């Protein structure tokens, strides 16, 4: 099996991508959205003509509402980001944007989140992350509860977790990139996407590992790496096919779906892709590598 033969190349690709993602995370950083830090977002669309951004910006600055930013959206609209607003401040911003109702506009959406709600959401997100991770680890432990030779069970589990981290880190890395260049922000959907990737991509690895252990038990091939190769051969088509169907719908969500779920769908697509990649090109080669190290030690 060529994947096992060239395992070091594939493992290197994965390592390179993970390292790149981590670098991107540190260089670009994650922009936290108002969901978590609190603040307000006002989206308006002008009916006839959109005033110049610079004019509106200076007019908004003059309101003294703290840091405030305005960016164009669509052909006729703007999004104003500010601290969380009360009724009076909100009305004031709308008045400023419409230049005392001289420029007709429609408020498409308004979202103001107080700092305490943001804190609560952050707390909830952290708890959800911890619980989902625990749930998945328990699930992995359960899936690999039977002892097997020559590589012991917990090593399968560990490798499954390593490849899972790989599947989540790469989309997050991509997101920091999108965050830097397209202004995507970390919101609740970002967290949901990361957690859903955990749930979706772990199964591929487990199914392939199950195949390997089934083949080991039945002594299908002589050596360990041949068995792994054979198992990969038997399962890679189905692995790719099952992910492919999900990626198909995700892509249609990226290109045709609502704007609010666009980045969410992009993250999931990337996560699904690398989830499948890691189950075939990372997890199984790592397993062979671990077995080789074990042999050398003896």
């Amino acid at each position: 099996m060529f994947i096992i033969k060239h395992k070091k190349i594939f493992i290197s690709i994965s390592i390179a991508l993970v390292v790149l993602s981590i670098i991107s995370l540190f260089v670009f950083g994650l922009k936290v959205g108002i969901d978590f830090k609190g603040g307000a977002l006002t989206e308006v669309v002008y009916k006839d003509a959109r005033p110049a951004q610079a004019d509106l910006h200076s007019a908004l600055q003059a309101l003294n509402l703290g840091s405030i930013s305005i960016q164009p959206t669509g052909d006729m609209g703007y999004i104003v980001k500010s601290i969380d607003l009360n009724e009076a401040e909100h009305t004031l911003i709308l008045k400023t944007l419409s230049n005392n109702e001289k420029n007709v506009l429609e408020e498409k959406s308004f979202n103001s989140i107080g700092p305490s709600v943001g804190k609560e959401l952050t707390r909830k997100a952290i708890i959800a992350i911890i619980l989902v991770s625990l749930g998945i680890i328990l699930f992995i432990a359960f899936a690999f509860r039977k002892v097997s030779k020559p590589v012991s069970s917990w090593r399968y589990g560990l490798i499954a977790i390593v490849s899972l981290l790989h599947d989540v880190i790469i989309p997050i890395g991509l997101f920091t990139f999108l965050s830097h260049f397209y202004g995507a922000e970390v919101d609740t959907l970002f967290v949901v996407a990361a957690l859903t990737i955990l749930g979706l991509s772990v199964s591929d690895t487990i199914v392939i590992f199950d195949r390997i252990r089934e083949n080991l038990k039945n002594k299908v091939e002589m050596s360990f790496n041949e068995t792994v190769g054979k198992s990969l051969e038997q399962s890679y088509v189905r692995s790719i096919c099952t992910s492919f169907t999900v990626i198909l719908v995700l892509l249609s969500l990226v290109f045709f779906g609502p704007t609010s779920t666009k980045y969410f769908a992009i993250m999931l697509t990337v996560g699904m892709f690398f989830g499948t990649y890691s189950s075939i090109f990372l997890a199984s080669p790592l397993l062979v590598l671990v077995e080789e190290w074990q042999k050398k030690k003896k």
Partner: protein
Amino acid sequence: MIKKRILAVVILLLGIGVAFFVFKSEPKLNINYESSGSFFKHSPFRLGLDLSGGSHLIYKADVSGVPSGQVSDSMNALRDVIERRVNLFGVSEPVVQIQEGGFVSGGEEKLIVDLPGVTDVEKATAMIGQTPLLEFKTEAPKDAPKTATVDENGKVNIDMSQQFVSTELSGRYLKKAILEFDQNTREPKVGLQFDDTGTKLFAEITKNNVGKIVAIYLDGAPISTPVVREEITGGEAQISGNFTPTEAKQLVGRLNSGALPVPISLLSKQTIGASLGDNAVHAGVKAAIIGFLFIALFLILWYRLPGIIAVISLCIYIAIILTLFKLLPVTLTAAGIAGFIISLGIAVDANVLIFERVKEEMRSGRIISDAVSTGFSRAWFSIRDSNSSSIITAVILFWFGTPLIKGFALTLGMGVLVSMLSAITITKIFLSSVNFIGEGKVARFLFSSGISK
């Protein structure tokens, strides 16, 4: 064999029936919607605020003055009051929910108010804010510190708020308010009637404060400061606050629609314009249809005859899940639609796993019907494993989620569960009912997949 085929036909008919229900109950699809039966009319999709447009308000309830054992009681009372208030204004299907201040949400009692169709936040918050907060306060002990300020004109001002201390008695113990007129002066008054607990509390307060002032506060300001002459055990009180008849009448109306048992403050607000929601719905439906077509195309091209069966069972799955969305009902949000769309991809996973196994069994020399039945039983473990991790994630997200996350977790989780059922049972019944095509070359070609012959 005949039995299996009959079963297949029955399932197909049931599927069509369910799909027909979805079609008939959707005003945009059914031209004769207006004339159709009420059964269909009562089951539209329930759209979340981000799709229908409307306001989403989060209030913090200040329960610091409520004894800890009664927090949930007064929160329930608060919800009922706000619900009545919102209903008075004729909003369709408002949702007023309590969010308990447990460990997860950080200890604050919150009230979430969803107002579909109301896109004017100012108006919405005004609607809720108008609710009066009625409090009864007693004189502070004499030795309590008081601050007096002397203003420019040499007038001494004593801060009223420090003169009085709160009591447990509040608007939540009010049974009803009535408009009364003083028999001598014809001055309008507001009569208050307390419920049982309120009566007891009021009796206690009046007993302990004979000769002193009991101040009645409305919305944080004293409106009446009568001196208690004797203990009042009848549970009735009067507010005579120099009202005009109209003012008194309004106050009675407001008090009867419910006085707030605890003070609330607005924490966050969200409004989504109707056009934005409409666009999101259109985009979601479009993405779902295109996604479905992609999958159908892939399944038929790659898996041939089993692929067609998988598409049929996917259609039945869609009909079932949409019906569940309508009947439960599930509130659909943009994220929820995304969850549903992803579930389309996951739903065929089980089929793919089964078909791949069947193919393997065929390669190892089994005849088609044997391959189908062993393929099914062997694929079960993979199907269970690959779905359980998604279900774990969905369940945890649902428990801890905000409405947004909940919408996604619910549609995804339901999708995974229902699709397991539909893929395994429906596909199995259909696949085993088409074995009449025999073992010929054509049959084996139809049951193969991919680029193999």
